[in-house]
């Protein structure tokens, strides 16, 4: 593999890998991870080209095989590039998910506000009509009383006329009351209808948001659940290490040299004026 291809492959693999910490993996129950070196991948590519040719019974010159190997690597790089862009997409989805979650919270808040607005509006309709009706009744009473007083002072009281006048006033008031009530009801119904349309729209948006959120969550969680194991094992030199004795000896020597260094550092510290 040419150096530039090797470098591209290496950088892409490092770029495509997702850093994670040992403690995080442990939290997720992983104990070991399999590690694949990029050189192994180079070898795998070459071997797969050779095996495929062999299975197909195709005999090619070394030069042609190398050419195919190079093409396979380029193809592999392209796939890695694709993987890279997919990773970016997943990152975008995660961001989108966060935005959607924030949006959903806003929608829910708005929905609650609108519902309570609607409740208040509906309660207000009856109250307004009752208040208006009471006002009209009191006005009607006052006008009737005035009419009676006015007509009773007349020299020739006409009971029938008085009764007729009061009836006319009452009819006019009833008509007016009905008209106002109808208008109020219509206005009220319009406001309620508007609120209901807003509620319905908010509910629809919330549903869409929930669906998008579920999709974003599913897409963003496709990474690395298949990592089985990651474990550096407990610290300390293993007695079964083939070079156990040699390593033990050199570690002891490193330690002794560092004890000397430490004593020098400590004595330097003691000499420094405080």
């Amino acid at each position, binding site marked *: 593999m040419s150096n530039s291809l090797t470098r591209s492959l290496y950088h892409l693999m490092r770029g495509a890998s997702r850093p994670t*910490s*040992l403690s995080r993996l*442990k939290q997720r129950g992983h104990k070991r991870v399999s590690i694949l070196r990029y050189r192994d991948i180079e070898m795998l590519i070459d071997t797969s080209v050779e095996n495929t040719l062999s299975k197909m019974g195709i005999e090619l010159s070394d030069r042609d095989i190398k050419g195919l190997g190079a093409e396979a690597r380029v193809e592999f790089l392209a796939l890695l590039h694709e993987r890279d862009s997919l990773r970016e997409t997943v990152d975008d989805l995660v961001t989108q998910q966060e935005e959607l979650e924030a949006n959903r919270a806003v929608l829910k808040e708005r929905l609650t506000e609108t519902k309570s607005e609607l409740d208040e509006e509906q309660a207000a309709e009856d109250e307004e009509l009752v208040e208006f009706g009471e006002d009209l009744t009191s006005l009607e009473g006052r006008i009737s009383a005035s009419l009676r007083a006015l007509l009773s002072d007349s020299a020739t009281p006409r009971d029938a006329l008085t009764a007729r006048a009061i009836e006319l006033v009452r009819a006019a008031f009833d008509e007016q009351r009905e008209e106002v009530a109808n208008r109020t009801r219509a206005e009220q119904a319009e406001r309620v209808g508007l609120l209901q349309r807003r509620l319905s729209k908010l509910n629809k948006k919330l549903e869409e948001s929930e669906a998008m959120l579920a999709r974003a969550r599913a897409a963003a969680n496709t990474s690395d659940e298949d990592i089985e194991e990651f474990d550096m094992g407990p610290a*300390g030199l293993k007695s079964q290490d083939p*070079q156990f004795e*040699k390593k033990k*000896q050199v570690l002891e020597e490193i*330690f002794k040299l560092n004890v000397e260094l430490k004593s020098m550092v400590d004595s*330097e510290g003691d000499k420094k004026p405080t």
Partner: protein
Amino acid sequence: MNDAAANPSDSTTPTAPVSAQEEETSILHIGMDLGTSRTAIAASNGARESVFSYVGYPKDVVSRKLLGDEPLYGEAAIKKRLSLNLFRPLEKGVIKGSTEGDASEDTEGNAAAAAALVQYAIRMAKPRPDQLIYAVIGCPAEASITNRTSIINAAKQVVDSVMIASEPFAVAYGLDVLTDALVIDIGAGTTDLCRMHGTMPEPEDQITLAIAGDKIDQLLAKLMKQNHPEVQFSERMITQAKEEHATATGAHEVIVTWPVNGKPTPIDITKEMNEACHSIVPPIVEALGKLVASFDPEFQDVLRNNVILGGGGSRIRGLGNAIESYMAEHLGGGKVNTVEEPVYAGANGALKIARDMPAEYWEQLS
């Protein structure tokens, strides 16, 4: 009198043993390659990070307003260098000014910058606040006692226990190659050679050359001035060109686009790059020859055929082959293998030492 003394039976009460996992998570082992050009760390929590060894402090009120009070590190510091007092605190693999008789540099400033760099590198490993940090830091093979103690002083402010190990030895330990091998660690400031023969390398097993990446930069700059006087470039541009295109094969064309009279112009620097990169081969092979020649004659052949090339310099294309060719010409042959991850080979090895080191050793040094 404490409770245990007051009631002797209490002292025999078995305490719950600390499980391996608990102990494991309560200690963070870190391996660090504190390099002239780049500092790399590998940690037992899986973190592996590197940063260019630059520390920059905002130089005035305007810079502080713009960049904040905190120092900048690595690439960020390089990018904002015009607004910063920029330190590259290491030279030839050690903290500037820490070599005996070297008073030319801002010793205190470099020591503080080195300490800040170590702190930043440790932070990159993202230790938990309650974790004990045990670190092994690699230093050049022939670093003096003063150089080593200055690194300890820089590190001890942020780690609970620290050890220093020779950088090429750390590379070898990381690769499990403790016998019959020669490790070459090419950094920016120094090239360290170390002969591995099953025990701790002695001073006569190690050679440090002051010929490494920085020398290549200097020679490349000199050759560019000589062969292309019309081209405008800076030290940083030279280093970047080397990082991207370094080659010792002569077979790869190196074209850079640098300004000529202010106009970006493609320049073919293949010849200059090749000559500069190749310049480190003869002194390295000469030093190799010395280490081979002073070894047991019976094992010289094995040693010559097991040369391991590491460090950032090993990323130079075709360097292993160039060394092999030169060895064939001058030492009668040899085999060179390049480490898989040049940037992290030292840190990985230092981490392995840190983790293999018995816990009681760490405690004694804390």
